């Protein structure tokens, strides 16, 4: 008898024979039916089919044989005794059809009560040995297993044991065949063999599945009868695919509580595997199962828990899972020195997961693991290659570690080995890890309240601090231009995160908090130039502390003395840090220093520490005078200074205030550009006209002690008007004048003519002057004004600091230019005109409210 060439043909043949067989059965011609079945089974002898095709054919044949099997069962003892049939089918000359038929008859026979059960089982499994071809043998034995599975629901333990033995024997033989499949055929098809084997793995796994169904709840049976035999086979077969798959299946299909009881055996087995089996996979699966067990226990469906607990009948020394794994790990490293870090790391990670799940608060376990890994890194000797980075990254920042942030922090602060392991990594990875650690800390809004904790964390972030100092030394030249602008911030998110640490520091005691901040400062010192990124954060936090002091003083005036001392101390620290920045960065960030000084001064003023405020102001001026050279920055600085000074209240002693404001105005009038001069000076005019600060309890009209000198105000305005007048550009000049007019209006509203010296006459004069100038301007433009009503949609303004603002109707966002945009020159001419019109309209409106305005001639 022969077989078909192709799978399609084979299946067609098989169908045809099935039909013939059924017909014969209907006519009760058993012998003919058997003949057809046998012809059909001959197709299974084909060596031409791939495992997949063979499986397809097998399924089809399985169905056909089921028909036959049903017939056997029905006709047993009525027509044919199955014992006779069992002998009859043995006359088939070819072994494969013979065995299939034999199993079909045998399994049918088993269904009758009088069958010699044991003998049939024994005979069937024994005879299956005749098939030594891997694929055919596997399928035959799978057929055996499928046909017999219904007979395994025994209750008494003897039968159970016998069944288990039967299945295990079958399993062992199948596994052998499966392994043998690997070694068949030419060497170059090895890959393909492996692939094919993986396609067939389910056939072998099915046996274990049956075992798990039998064992179900019988731990003793599992431990004594099932597992040792399976594991022995796993070890003996020495085949990678098989070992990997089988251990995985064992872990997956038997209940977690069983694994608890047999952990030692499982782990011991995994030590004896073929060296190329990825041992980490095994460990990971096991860990997942054990963790799953805990999960189930925590969400108890009652049944399983009680059942589970009943099984956990394990010795004391086995109770500590971690210890068992730890022992395993040590053995592993002893017996398998060939294991690379790459393979070891996931194992550790697996154990890590386990301990985190089972012993969630046990830092020392984790410490032990990290320590182990650290040792391994040291043994590795040379620098860790970059492709290992992800391993350690995963290990150090496992999601399981980070998920519980409080544990993570304990880990960071208490676990020695963590730091050790981290420091063993290359700087890139260290930086990456530090980054993520910081992210986690920030995300968790953890408060660092003790110095050791802080130091620990800073140490962990050491890579971020130091690595950049390297960069600094290597690119010294470039750094000269490294100005502190917004772009730079975004370029160094690392530094931003470091700076963030300072915000995490927190302690109720102001002194301790301050100490934390100073600790940060000391650490950051190492980063050289980069302290310009961190120091502002520290200063900022010191400011917060100062504020806190103020609040406390307000609440409890009696401790003012003491707290004043503290505050002074804090200011000193601020000053120190500002100096640090200055020393480290030199010219790089003067603007920053200036602003910090001004801001600190303002704070000191608010704390009524005039001397200190003065100091900081004078520092600011020093910087301004010595180092701020850019005209634009200068202008901004003056405005900033004026703004701050105007609000100070504690500087009146020793005429500090006058000194400072005079100096400020003087600097303003000495600015490079005339429009800057003009604006700076009229802004400075406010320094002589203090206004109410309601939080301090001041009120216009009630408080008498405002620092106001109208004469100086007028002087300032006049001076700025002179400058405005001397500006060559008519448009600019007019605009400035209108701005001065606005100021005049402000003073006119807010004070009597007597005190401000800004009177009707002056305003009228100014309006006249502007009108005249604008007339001149209009002459220049009338010729052009006609050509575009559409221009009306585009508007341009000049900002208070002299920038040009252009608003396009099409675009809701206005564009700002520091230089007059060349294309819009015609538009520029309208700026002062429109500004003037708006001002006049305002004055007109004011006339309705304030009678004094009626004197203004428009």
């Amino acid at each position: 008898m022969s077989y078909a060439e192709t799978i399609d043909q084979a299946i067609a043949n098989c169908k045809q024979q099935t039909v013939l067989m059924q017909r014969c059965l209907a006519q009760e011609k058993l012998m003919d039916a058997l003949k057809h079945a046998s012809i059909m089974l001959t197709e299974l002898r084909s060596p031409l089919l791939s495992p997949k095709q063979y499986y397809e054919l097998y399924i089809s044949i399985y169905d056909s044989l089921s028909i036959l099997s049903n017939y056997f069962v029905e006709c047993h003892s009525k027509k044919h005794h199955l014992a006779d049939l069992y002998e009859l089918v043995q006359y088939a000359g070819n072994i494969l059809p013979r065995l299939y038929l034999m199993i079909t008859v045998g399994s049918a026979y088993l269904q009758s009560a009088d069958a010699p059960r044991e003998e049939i089982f024994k005979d069937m499994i024994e005879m299956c040995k005749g098939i030594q071809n891997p694929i055919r043998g596997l399928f035959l034995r799978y057929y055996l297993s499928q046909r017999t599975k219904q007979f395994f629901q025994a209750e008494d333990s003897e039968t159970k044991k016998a069944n288990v033995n039967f299945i295990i024997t079958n399993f062992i033989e199948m596994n052998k065949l499966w392994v043998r499949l690997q070694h068949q055929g030419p060497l170059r098809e090895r890959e393909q063999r492996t692939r094919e084997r993986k396609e067939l793995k389910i056939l072998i796994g099915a046996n274990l599945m049956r075992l798990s169904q039998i064992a179900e709840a019988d731990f003793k049976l599992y431990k004594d009868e099932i597992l040792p035999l399976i594991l022995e086979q796993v070890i003996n077969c020495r085949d990678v695919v098989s070992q990997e798959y089988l251990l995985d299946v064992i872990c997956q299909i038997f209940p977690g509580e069983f694994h608890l009881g047999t952990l030692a055996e499982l782990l011991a087995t995994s030590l004896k595997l073929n060296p190329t089996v990825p041992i980490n996979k095994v460990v990971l699966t096991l860990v997942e199962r054990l963790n799953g067990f805990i999960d189930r226990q925590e969400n108890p469906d009652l049944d399983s828990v009680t059942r589970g607990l009943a099984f956990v009948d394990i010795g004391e020394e086995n109770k500590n899972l971690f210890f068992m794994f730890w022992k395993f790990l040590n053995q592993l490293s002893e017996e398998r020195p060939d294991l690379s870090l790459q393979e070891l790391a996931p194992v550790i990670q697996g154990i890590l997961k386990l301990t985190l799940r089972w012993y969630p608060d046990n830092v020392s376990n984790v410490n032990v693991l990290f320590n182990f890994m650290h040792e391994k890194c040291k043994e590795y000797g040379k620098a860790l290659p970059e492709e290992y980075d992800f391993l350690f990254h995963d290990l150090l920042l496992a999601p399981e570690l980070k998920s519980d942030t409080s544990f993570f922090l304990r880990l960071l602060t208490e676990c020695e080995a963590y730091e050790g392991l981290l420091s063993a990594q290359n700087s890139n990875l260290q930086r990456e890890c530090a980054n993520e650690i910081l992210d986690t800390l920030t995300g968790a809004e953890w408060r660092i309240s003790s110095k050791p904790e802080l130091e620990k964390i800073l140490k962990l972030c050491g890579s971020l601090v130091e690595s950049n100092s390297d960069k600094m030394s290597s690119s010294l030249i470039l750094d000269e231009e490294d100005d502190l602008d917004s772009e730079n911030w975004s370029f160094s998110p690392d530094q931003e995160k470091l700076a963030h640490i300072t915000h995490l520091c927190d302690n109720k005691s102001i002194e301790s908090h301050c100490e934390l901040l100073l600790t940060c400062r000391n650490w950051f010192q190492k980063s050289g130039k980069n302290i310009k990124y961190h120091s502002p954060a520290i200063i900022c936090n010191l400011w917060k502390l100062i504020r806190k002091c103020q609040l406390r003083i307000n609440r409890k005036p009696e401790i003012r003395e003491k707290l004043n001392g503290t505050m002074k101390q804090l200011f000193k620290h601020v000053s120190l840090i500002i100096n640090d920045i200055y020393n480290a960065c030199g010219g790089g960030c003067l603007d920053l220093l200036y602003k910090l000084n001004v801001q600190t001064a303002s704070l000191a003023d608010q704390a009524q520490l005039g001397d200190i405020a003065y100091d900081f102001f004078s520092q600011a001026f020093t910087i301004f005078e010595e180092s701020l050279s850019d005209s634009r920055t200068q202008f901004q600085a003056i405005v900033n200074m004026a703004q701050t000074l105007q609000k100070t209240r504690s500087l009146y002693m020793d005429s500090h205030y006058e000194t400072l404001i005079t100096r400020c105005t003087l600097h303003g009038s000495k600015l490079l550009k005339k429009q800057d001069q003009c604006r700076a000076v009229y802004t400075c005019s406010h320094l002589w006209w203090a206004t109410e600060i309601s939080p301090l309890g001041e009120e216009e009209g009630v408080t008498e002690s405002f620092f106001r000198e109208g004469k100086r105000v007028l002087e300032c305005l006049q001076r700025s008007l002179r400058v405005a007048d001397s500006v060559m550009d008519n448009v600019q000049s007019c605009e400035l004048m209108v701005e001065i007019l606005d100021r005049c209006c402000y003073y006119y509203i807010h004070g009597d003519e007597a005190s401000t010296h800004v009177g009707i006459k002056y305003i009228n004069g100014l309006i006249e002057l502007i009108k005249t100038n604008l007339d001149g301007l209009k002459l220049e433009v009338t010729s052009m004004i006609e050509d575009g009503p559409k221009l009306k949609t585009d508007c341009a303004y000049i900002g208070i600091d002299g920038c040009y603002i252009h608003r396009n109707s099409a675009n809701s966002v206005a564009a700002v230019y520091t230089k007059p945009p060349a294309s819009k020159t015609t538009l520029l001419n309208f700026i002062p005109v429109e500004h003037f019109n708006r001002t006049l309209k305002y004055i007109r409106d004011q006339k309705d409210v304030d009678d004094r305005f009626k004197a203004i001639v428009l």
Partner: protein
Amino acid sequence: MSLFFKSPIDIEILLDGEESRKHVEIANSSDSASARTLRDKYPVYEDGESVSGIVTLRVKEGKKLEHLGIKVSLVGSVDISKSSSESKKRPVETFLSLSADLCPHGELIHSQNFPFHFKDVEKRYESYRGKNVDVSYYIKVTVLRKSTDIVKHKRFWCFLYNREALPSAVSSSQNEGKPVKLDIGIENCLHIEFEYSKSQFSLKDVIVGRIYFLLTRLKVKHMELSVITRETCGLEPNQLSDSTSIRYEIMDGSPVKGETIPIRLFLGGYDLTPSSNFNHFSIKNYLSLVIIDEDGRRYFKQSEIVLYRKRN
């Protein structure tokens, strides 16, 4: 021809209880292809059994037959004449011949019945129809005449049971029933050990055994067990003729070292010949293990087994 020389008399031999007696079907030995599929059917007798029956002589209507006496005889003969080579042709050898007279010379006028009875006939050999040799038993009725005698044969078949007692060519009585172990191999290539439960089997027996692979470097495709029946006839040089009675696949695929393959072969369903030894020829049965490798090469080992017929 028969038309002209038509026998003037019809002879019919009817054995007692023939209808109810057990029959065997034996493949027709005729050489013509069309007849090969035909099967002859013969009644079966045992050793020591009486053979009796009735001979009926029918004379054609209105005729009479003059004869010199009518004789019935029981003949057992070995016929090696089927041998193809003429030179070695041997005569038919008769090893058994019993006769009895049925009636003295006279004239047959009408049909007449003559009973005959050979009591407790010893039949030394079992009937056999082989390639070169036939062992046959028949009843022969001879009507003696002045001219040619009229002869009528009636074949019957003979089975011999309980042959254990007979001396056997291979197995002496002491190792009978003991398992047969064989250890064979090709150096550095194959080494197997096989074992049968015994070396003598009845025709309804089961051959049980196992094959143990100690070393296998062959790529085995499959392995077969076959039973070969060998008839030997004549003197030197022996005329051998083998025929394979059973081919039975016992293994599919290539085993590895350490595998044990079970053997179980039911003989009952096959048409086998018991081993026997005659004066001039013998029938022996061999159990042959054949290993076929993937290149189609066959490796085999034969060992003799004794088959005997046993009463159920």
